[in-house]
């Protein structure tokens, strides 16, 4: 959890807006440090977190979260965190085994034309409160879905339409019905064809329309710099309850070992 980012977004683990769909995007840079922020943020806020980790292993997130002060293994044990390790689950599908082990969530690898329905079923089953366990579901706050990242689904052959359907269903279930939050990461490339319907840029446009808050990470327009890793543009898509903070904000950031620091343009400590 980065305290500067919390003050920029005007949130804290004690009070944050419910029913938000936060979209993280990057173009030729890496926005995954924001995923770690939101993961530790919502775990500290005592929410029930469902994390779909498609690109890295559990130990990676666990080690980084430990540096940010949150233990994923403990959260998993207590039942606060549901972790889907996409890499591990995919192996049983990619290399056909005799016995079928693992969840059905990664079934889109068998035939991407089927879409992400199984993945959605997995998410909704983990996120909805179980009928019998009313007592245990009271201790955790609203459910949160984190996805890292959606563009790898596109590279594995899923269509943009299917991913948009998936995010729409998830938003309807988690944000509208259960008043929880959603955070999704989409990674783009600089060069895309305008007419290409299956590019991540197309997906990004569709998701930006659905989202309530977008954080767009880009490299510096002047090139690579060691002290300033890039810039983040924060856009609120929906008007806040009291009508404040609807302006777009632009910040520069630097990622270091235990977190990230955000500062206004031109005020980096290396420059001043």
């Amino acid at each position: 959890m980065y305290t500067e980012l919390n003050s920029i977004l005007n949130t804290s683990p004690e009070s944050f807006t419910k029913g938000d769909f936060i979209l993280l995007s990057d173009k030729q840079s890496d926005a995954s440090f924001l995923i770690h922020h939101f993961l530790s943020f919502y775990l500290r806020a005592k929410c029930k977190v469902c994390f779909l980790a498609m690109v890295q292993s559990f130990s990676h997130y666990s080690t980084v979260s430990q540096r940010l002060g949150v233990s994923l293994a403990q959260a998993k044990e207590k039942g606060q965190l549901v972790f889907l390790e996409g890499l591990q689950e995919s192996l049983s599908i990619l290399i056909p085994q005799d016995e079928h082990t693992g969840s059905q969530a990664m079934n889109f690898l068998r035939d991407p034309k089927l879409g992400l329905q199984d993945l959605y079923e997995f998410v909704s089953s983990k996120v909805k409160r179980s009928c019998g366990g009313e007592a245990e579901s009271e201790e955790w706050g609203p459910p949160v879905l984190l996805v890292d990242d959606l563009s790898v689904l596109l590279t594995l052959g899923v269509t943009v339409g299917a991913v948009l359907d998936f995010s729409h269903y998830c938003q309807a279930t988690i944000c509208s019905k259960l008043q929880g939050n959603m955070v999704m990461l989409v990674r783009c490339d600089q060069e895309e064809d305008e007419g290409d319907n299956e590019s991540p840029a197309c997906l990004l446009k569709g998701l930006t329309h659905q989202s309530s808050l977008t954080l767009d990470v880009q490299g510096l327009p002047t090139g690579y710099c060691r002290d300033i890793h890039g810039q983040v543009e924060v856009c609120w898509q929906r008007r806040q309850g009291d009508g404040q903070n609807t302006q777009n904000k632009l910040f520069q950031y630097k990622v270091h070992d235990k977190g990230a620091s955000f500062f206004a343009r031109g005020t980096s400590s290396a420059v001043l």
Partner: protein
Amino acid sequence: MAAPMERVIKQQTERSTFKTTSFQKKTRSKLLSIPGTRPSVQNGQLLVSSGVTSLDFLLGGGLAVGTVLLIEEDRYDSYSRVILKYFLAEGVVCRHRLFVAAAQENPDDILQELPAPILDDVAIPKPVEQPRLPCESQESLDSMKIAWRYQNLPKVQTALVSSSRFGHYYDVSKTMEPEIRQAAKSHCFYLPDHPQKTSNTHSQFLGPYSALLKSLQEVIRQEGFEVAASMSNSQNPNVLRIGLHSLGSALWGDDLCCSDSPEHRHSLVTFLYGLRALLRSSLAVAVITLPSHLIQDRALMGNITRLSDYSIALESFKGSERETNPLYRDYHGLLHVRQVPHLNCLASQLPDHKDLAFKLKRKQFSIEFHPVKSHVESTG
């Protein structure tokens, strides 16, 4: 006053009968000590040398175990092949296991051409020496009169079985001697030996790479390279070095390089995804060479790069007008570092300099910072 002192002396003498020194280095149990590896300075990850010491320095000390290095080939696949051979030769010298896959030629041919290491302390294992040791130890038990503190320590072998250094140098003009090469066990995957089964519906998406992925998983499982298995194993853990030559080329049955809108658009990326899944849970490192200059689709190249961990591109001057350009006189080509991962940490360490040029010398593959001043070119 005397009583506490007595107790202290007694404790000290008690302790000294068990160990010669009370200093014990704290080693976390999860750090495996495998010859030819070392922990990273930045985040404690286990690193292996890529065989090229200057490349190790660029990539943050070496290749992390469990990752993939993607080398975008130069036009004639000369220097990328050299780096692949350095990688495999390093594995032989460190006594790692090798897995080589190729479609163009027999992987055995690649293994015959490994460069010879330049080392004084790489010992060729002679089986004759082994039976002498038990009888030798009996004589030496009585001989420790002065250095009696070292009597209980195990006898150190004078002939090193495997080199303990990290990163070695190779002489490209000579090939590795067969005795040294045969000391390291290797698995070969030659694509024509594995005809594609059309009946397998599960792996239809991997296309031509399904047999390769399955073979890799079998080797990792059977030889015990999975991390969970290595931890509980009483035998010495080892690292598997995987070299995949020219993936994505037409010889693998993939039409990525042949057409603008390939039919097997997702096979290679799905294979890379499966490879990442395999490697993250095993003690293995993979180096893949890819003829990226044949792939027209830049977005696809971006996807491939993102699904590998380290990514470098080689651009050789051979056959281009830069070969005779006085600016590039000392170098054989340019090297671009496209991506360096940040595993288990938040920030990655990209090399400071973006303009890198390489030169293949007889005893060293050197990579240096070469500032290219474009205004000099235009005026000259």
